[in-house]
């Protein structure tokens, strides 16, 4: 059993405390799940404990996460501007403005410094170039953004719904998340997502997203939430290199039996989450330590258990993660 009281004493604030995504009475039991928290649990329960229960993350945010966040936001701004009636040039300039203004750090003396990145492919310039080139590539995008019943464009949509996956006390799990865009192509509706990578684009780029928990969750959920016959996903992949950005569009399709299989797998995993919380113990998955370039918590897990709390204190900071926080429209 992991002694939560010690962590509470050490860190003061824990992510699971007072978090609306957690059960109000059963300690450390998350009841609202997005693809990030679900994926972390599947990857390694101990990593889930560190990030979702304690709310710790490495002090230095991954440059890839920072880049991806700015890339998504810039294109979201473009999508909103277009749907509000702006022409292509105006909407593109709004996205560029965001990239320029969001990638500086304001200093106490009123000055600023540009975002410094140690990754040659992910910096201010490659962000601007990737956003502008992406928009040029899809200037005459055949995928048209769906207009919601409230008249707003279906862009950066936050969703949540109650599943029939039930806890012993009768509480039902919720599934939630954020979809970049819903669009129509040739009479069919798709959810759209954008990904960046420094790796060369190839058929394998899209093959690795099937199966994939995030895409499977979006596929299943978009059919449930919007009550539209969503045919599948469209993934716009960007290869970001030092001297160029390149793009490719791929389709992600699942049939009904695949969707049901994802849901049953989810039921299994969320049931596991209940038992982890009941036991107060989230075991390591030692086969995941080297994935994705190495788990950032690997140096912590490599230490003797009795010293890890101090290492966590020294090398991580609090990040509050509540999947129920709305980013865009519901």
């Amino acid at each position, binding site marked *: 059993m992991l002694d939560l009281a010690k962590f509470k004493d050490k860190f003061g604030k824990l992510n699971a405390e007072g978090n609306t995504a957690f059960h109000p009475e059963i300690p450390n039991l998350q009841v609202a799940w997005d693809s990030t928290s679900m994926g972390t649990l599947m990857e390694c329960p101990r990593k889930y404990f560190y990030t979702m229960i304690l709310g710790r993350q490495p002090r230095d945010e991954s440059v890839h996460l920072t880049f991806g966040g700015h890339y998504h936001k810039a294109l979201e701004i473009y999508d909103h501007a277009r749907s509000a009636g702006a022409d292509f040039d105006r909407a593109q300039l709004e996205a*560029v403005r965001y990239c320029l203004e969001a990638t500086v750090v304001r200093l106490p003396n009123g000055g600023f410094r540009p975002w410094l990145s*140690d990754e*040659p492919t992910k910096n201010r*310039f490659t962000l601007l170039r990737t956003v502008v*080139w992406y928009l040029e590539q899809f200037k005459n995008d055949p995928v048209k953004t769906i207009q919601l019943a409230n008249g707003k464009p279906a862009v950066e949509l936050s969703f949540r719904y109650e599943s029939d996956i039930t806890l012993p006390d009768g509480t039902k799990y919720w599934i939630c998340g954020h979809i970049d865009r819903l669009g129509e192509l040739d009479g069919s509706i798709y959810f759209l997502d954008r990904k960046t990578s420094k790796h060369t684009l190839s058929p394998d780029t899209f093959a690795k997203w099937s199966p994939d928990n995030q895409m499977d969750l979006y596929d299943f959920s978009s059919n449930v939430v919007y009550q539209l016959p969503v045919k599948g996903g469209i993934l716009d992949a960007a290869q970001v290199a*030092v*001297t160029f950005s390149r793009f490719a569009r791929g389709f992600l399709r699942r049939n009904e039996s695949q969707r049901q299989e994802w849901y049953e797998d989810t039921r299994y995993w969320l049931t596991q989450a209940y038992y982890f919380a009941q036991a107060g113990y989230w075991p390591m998955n030692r086969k995941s330590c080297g994935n994705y370039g190495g788990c950032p918590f690997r140096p912590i897990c490599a230490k003797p258990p009795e010293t890890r709390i101090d290492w966590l204190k020294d090398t991580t900071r609090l990040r509050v993660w509540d999947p129920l926080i709305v980013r865009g429209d519901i």
Partner: protein
Amino acid sequence: MSDLSVLAEADPRSLEDILNDDPLKLTEQDRVQVVTYLRRARESFLAQESGKLTTSEKKDLKAKAVPAPKKQALDETKAQLTLDDLDL
């Protein structure tokens, strides 16, 4: 595109100057300059991809692709550069 080009040609500041300026003080014209620069870079890249460029044009494209960083930024990053960064 044509409106943007006219505006950009009026004051051709270098992209490096614009990126080193306080973004809150940048003008519409500066942002247009950024877009114009990047559109041209893309056209050059696409032409290169389709094999239409001469060797000297390819060299020119490579020189234009990344604006020269300020010395301080260069000092901070050069220790981490490897041959892989040449993107050969």
